[in-house]
């Protein structure tokens, strides 16, 4: 299927600033998500999980 011939307009400075803030918020949320699962793993399994015999 041929690509539709669409044109895009540039973002205004205000829109770019909002997009930057959204990106930072998403990055922070992802970091918090990873931290949450790390804490959850440690709490549920305990620190000894790392020193078990392999």
């Amino acid at each position, binding site marked *: 299927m041929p690509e539709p011939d669409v044109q*895009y307009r540039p973002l205004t400075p205000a829109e770019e600033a909002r997009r930057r803030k959204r990106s930072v918020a998403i990055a922070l949320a992802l970091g918090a998500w990873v931290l*949450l699962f790390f804490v959850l793993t440690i709490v549920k399994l305990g620190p000894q999980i790392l020193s078990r015999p392999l």
Partner: protein
Amino acid sequence: MTSLTNSIGPDVPAPALSAAGGDVPDYFALLKPRVMVLVIFTALVGMVVSQGHVQPAIGAISLLAIAIGAGASGCLNMWWDADIDAVMSRTATRPIPSGRITSEEALGFGLFLSVASVLVLGLTANWLAAGLLAFTIVFYAVIYSMWLKRATAQNIVIGGAAGALPPVIGQAVVTGSVGIESLILFAIIFIWTPPHFWALALIKADEYARAGIPMMPNVAGPASTRRQIVWYSLFLAPLGLAPVALGFGGLLYAVIGLVGGLGMIAFSIRVLRNNEGEAEKRAAMGMFGFSILYLFALFSALLAEQSFGLFRPVLG
């Protein structure tokens, strides 16, 4: 570098805000933060009245998941109700009707957070709690928002179950089961909801009528609604003392429950007697405000008694 946004041609005046996405606070507003605070509070009380113990980190992460689940259901509610919100003064400035966020963005955001919150709660606490959270989200977003709200004057009576479930989820987090304590708290919030919302609906009846929402004052009339507010308050006052009878509400709770229950009855009678002009509005707003204070005081008393050693048994 040229930034690209959506496929709007250069000659087409673009709705700039919605085309480029909202600001971070707009997404936060989609989660109904005030409702989230109430949900965290009532779920926490459901946890502390439970006969059990939960590791603090597990409890905190569970509360976070419950709050995000509640926020997700609020987001889905805003997605579905954007047409109604646009014609009501109280809700017209919300992110979707004001054009700051598109419906599609809100739907994706709400669905993602719904699934994520349920999964996190299941992995953190247990799958009963996660199942109850999923049920709450579906009940609020689908049963209440998509069906009951536009179909029956009993919308907020039945739909109130969604707002009443957080203490039950809280107890499920701690004990892995549902006990009488959280079911009593569920019943209190459930019976509290109609007089609370109908007081507001009495004042906003015109707006609800314009939006086509069959709230009780629009369907049964203001007089019938006022009588029902009194009946619900008469039932709520003794129900509010049930934790005392069951032994998990102490002396502090009993005093607050008794005074607050009598206050609810007094405010409801004031609503019944004042049915015209400014007096009607003042009475309804008084009922609305006091009902919030009443529920907050009841749950705060339980929290204080169980968490700060203030519990003094009333019976036995």
